[in-house]
């Protein structure tokens, strides 16, 4: 595998080729090893400045990027929506230009508007890494999910991956769909028909509301967090009914093949989309996802941040 990476930004998985995705995963293999050393640090991004610009808040993703940057010896600054001047009415474009004037090399952006990272990437010299834009994409999450599957099952193609939950509003689901289908996996989406419309079939995946029929055939089950907040009130009647119909309860988990992986991007709603025991059970690779997230993010920062400008 010897294609070279020439993108300064990572905006999503939809535009990457299968080659490029595999290249990132192989690079992540190397960086995962760094986490086992005594000195968990390499100088690859020494002298570079990385800004975590989380207009939409997140602790875990931000921490993961921050740690990845530190391990690459980059300098890290964290800006959140409340601490930024966006609250004073400054436009996104002006905020970003100010950041670039500080010679930020890499901008990791999480934003509630789809397309915001692309907007900045087109206007800034800095590398822009999408840490989640609205319901559009969360490419590093998609990559670490795929990395984990590949690590545990040795391959991606022809595996049956089942993603369960609020797909319509999920950037994690979309990135997974794009990446997995590109690498040859068979994907089935499961959830209430209001949140998993048939339109998704045009993306090359199967759609089902019959979770009990789908689970026995799954090689991987990826559960998405479900919330019954204001914007979803009209889409399903409540958490209780959701769990009854679609939760991966202890009982339902018995339908799974013994080597089926159970995944979740976190944070977990114990007892809602997944029972506590299943989350902590032998098939769960949820904690591996977190470890792998660090390696994948180091790989992404290394590849994008290292492009000569």
């Amino acid at each position, binding site marked *: 595998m010897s294609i070279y990476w020439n993108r300064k930004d990572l905006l999503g998985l939809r535009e990457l080729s299968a080659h490029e995705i595999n290249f990132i995963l192989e690079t992540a293999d190397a960086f995962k090893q760094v986490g086992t050393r005594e000195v968990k640090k390499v100088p690859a991004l020494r002298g570079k400045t990385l800004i975590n610009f989380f207009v939409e808040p997140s602790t875990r993703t931000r921490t993961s990027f921050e740690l990845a940057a530190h391990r690459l010896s980059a300098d890290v600054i964290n800006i959140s929506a409340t601490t930024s001047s966006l609250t004073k009415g400054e436009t996104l474009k002006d905020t970003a230009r100010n950041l670039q004037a500080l010679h930020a090399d890499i901008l990791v952006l999480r934003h509630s508007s789809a*397309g915001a990272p692309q907007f900045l990437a087109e206007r800034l010299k800095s590398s822009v890494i999408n840490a989640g834009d609205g*319901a559009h994409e969360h490419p590093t999450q998609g990559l670490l999910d795929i990395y984990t599957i590949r690590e545990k099952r040795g391959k991606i193609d022809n595996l049956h991956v089942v993603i369960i939950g609020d797909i319509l509003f999920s950037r994690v689901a979309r990135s997974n769909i794009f990446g997995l289908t590109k690498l040859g996996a068979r994907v089935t989406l499961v959830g209430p028909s209001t949140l998993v419309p048939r339109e998704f079939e*045009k993306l090359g995946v199967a759609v089902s509301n019959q979770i009990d029929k789908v689970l026995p055939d799954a090689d991987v089950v990826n559960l998405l967090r479900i919330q019954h907040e204001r914007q979803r009130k009209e889409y399903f009647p409540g958490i209780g009914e959701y769990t009854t119909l679609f939760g991966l309860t202890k009982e339902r988990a018995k339908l799974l093949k013994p080597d089926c992986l159970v995944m979740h991007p976190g944070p977990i709603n114990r007892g809602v989309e997944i029972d506590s025991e299943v989350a902590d059970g032998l098939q769960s690779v949820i904690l591996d996802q977190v470890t792998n997230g660090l390696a994948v993010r180091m790989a992404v920062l290394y590849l994008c941040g290292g492009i000569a400008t």
Partner: protein
Amino acid sequence: MIIRNGRVIDPANKRDDVIDLAMVDGKISERSEIRNQETETIDAKGLIVAPGLIDMHVHLREPGFGHKETIESGARAAAAGGFTTIVCMPNTSPAADNPATIAWIKDRAKETAGVNILPTGAISKNIAGEELALIGSLGRAGVVAITDDGHCVQNHELMRRAVEYARMVGLPVLDHCQDYNLVGNGVVNEGYWSTLLGLPGWPAAGEEAIVMRNILLAELCDHHIHCQHISAAGSVRFIREARARGVKISGEVCPHHIALTDEAIQNFDTNYKMNPPLRAKADVDAILEGIADGTLSILCSDHAPHAGFEKEVEFDQAPFGIVGLETELGLFIDLLVHKHRKIDIKHLIKMYTVEPAKLLNLDAGTLSAGAPADVTLIDPDLDWTVKIDQFQSLSRNSPFDGWKLKGRAVRTIVGGKTVWSL
């Protein structure tokens, strides 16, 4: 002024001949009245001589939003697009829901505008959809129609009463068809692309539901309702069936709804964000059929200028709309007459003259003797490239920069005087 050698297309009088057209004292005249001295002569060989075109859906932004466009700059843009009459929408600040604002607009137009500006008034107070606006007084102040464009009255009962009231004062009702509940915070057509990109969808049913509402009310109240900027196949179907039964309903088309599909949004370029949104090919095809069979009878732009900094933001934050006065004619001739061959140039001219004039009861849209000398000269085969930095409009929010089109207005004459020429 006398225009020689042009192909005079005057659908109102069923004329299509290569003859001379004379204008005296701001009115179309018989040729015999021309005195030869001081008569400006224009050679229109190879050109079409049409009644001055009417765009009945334009946002001029004054009062209140002069940074996007002014009545003066909008008028210049209209002239550059070949339009002698434009009808402006009431979503200004303050809204055009009272006679004082209408008077202000008319004065401003008289002072600064090179083309005819006809205001519309609001249906509801402050365009809030809750109480009737002063529709009668607006009529007296000189509006040509009422509309809440930009918004849509959701309360069907209120809309019914507005239509009945408008019937009393003789004003047509125009409606921007959008069901707020079905649409929610949709920003792009609900379909494959919105699903792929994770953007909130604006389903076609959100427009079709209100088109159906308007058909029912047009029948119930026996008064004309005109559905603005039709974008969805279902809307075309409903209007076709209703018109076949004689219901007083009509629809208009903006060029972007046939020039583009929702595939264009995938780079999150806000120049492709309009309301109603760009839709799928099936919708484009249905609209083309609707134009060809006369279901959709009027062409317009929904010219919606926005400043650069307003559009250069995150996709879901950006205001809807694009400018259109300076590209609409070129796009429609290129797509309808040349590319898709759905209608001939005569029919296109009819959709820009006779039809809006009939709907709005205007003394315009014809080349009859004694009519105002508003004339548009068109070269239907002129190849040109859209260059947005040469626009007369104050705003540049257009997705058509660089488009190569065939067909363009080459001279715009208002009241017997040239207000623009290529």
